[in-house]
């Protein structure tokens, strides 16, 4: 069952990913992306990370993609679409990406964790996933968490400033 689900998710994820980067129309890309995120959330579920799965759907699909869509709508891109979607050097880019892929895949072959942490399935089940993650996040990683919040704040302010500012030509 798990293997089947994993196979389904994997196939869809790969196909959709390819469609995301190859679609001529950005709106289509965004929509493919939406589909992709749901499937990734599925993979997270397979990995017992239900909180992350939820976050994935809410933040990525709900927030970020909407942002993308708004932007695309805001810009008048009809003309752009008719032009060639790829840069001149796309074969080289593809080759490099493939080369990296092959290297990484080869490197990953037979990888096994050399270290087992304290949060096995049982521990998480007794604690519940969200609570366990919260414990780690708010104790061990409190400072990074706070920093992340500052980063988000700065990003909000920056986005507002940038988007509002009239640039002089």
């Amino acid at each position, binding site marked *: 069952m798990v293997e089947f689900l994993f196979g389904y998710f994997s196939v869809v994820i790969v196909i959709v990913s390819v469609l995301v980067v190859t679609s001529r129309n*950005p709106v289509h890309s965004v929509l493919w992306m939406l589909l992709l995120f749901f499937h990734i959330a599925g993979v997270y579920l397979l*990995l017992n990370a239900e909180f992350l799965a939820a976050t994935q759907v809410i933040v990525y699909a709900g927030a970020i993609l909407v942002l993308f869509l708004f932007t695309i709508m805001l810009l008048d891109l009809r003309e752009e679409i008719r032009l060639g979607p790829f840069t001149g050097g796309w074969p080289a880019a593809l080759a490099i990406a493939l080369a990296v892929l092959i290297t990484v895949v080869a490197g990953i072959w037979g990888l096994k964790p050399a270290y087992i*942490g304290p949060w096995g399935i049982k521990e998480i089940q007794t604690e519940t996933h969200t609570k366990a993650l919260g414990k780690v996040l708010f104790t061990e990683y409190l400072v990074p968490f706070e920093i992340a919040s500052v980063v988000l704040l700065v990003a909000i302010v920056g986005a507002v400033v940038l988007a509002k500012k009239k640039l002089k030509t």
Partner: protein
Amino acid sequence: MIPLHWYLWLGSVVFCIGMAGFLMRRNIIIMFLSIELMLNGVNINLVALSHYMQDLRGQVLTLMVIAVAAAEAAVGLAIVIALFRNRPTVHVDEITEMKG
């Protein structure tokens, strides 16, 4: 039980497709999407490792990545808007003002 490296392969494939997209596309919005793709590839790996190593730190890191991705998308798209207002193009190979 699915072996760990299957997940890792999946993440790597997503990452590399994202990378290929980033390098190949001219449209800056799709390039941003590609970056998101790459981040998601990484996220898959992080979560997979977290699961197999029985350590939640990977998932914490994933959360951070999502936060940063959100910030990045916000700022990046704001820049795109500002840029587009200035020069009506989203094709990066036409935007080379910052070259050295």
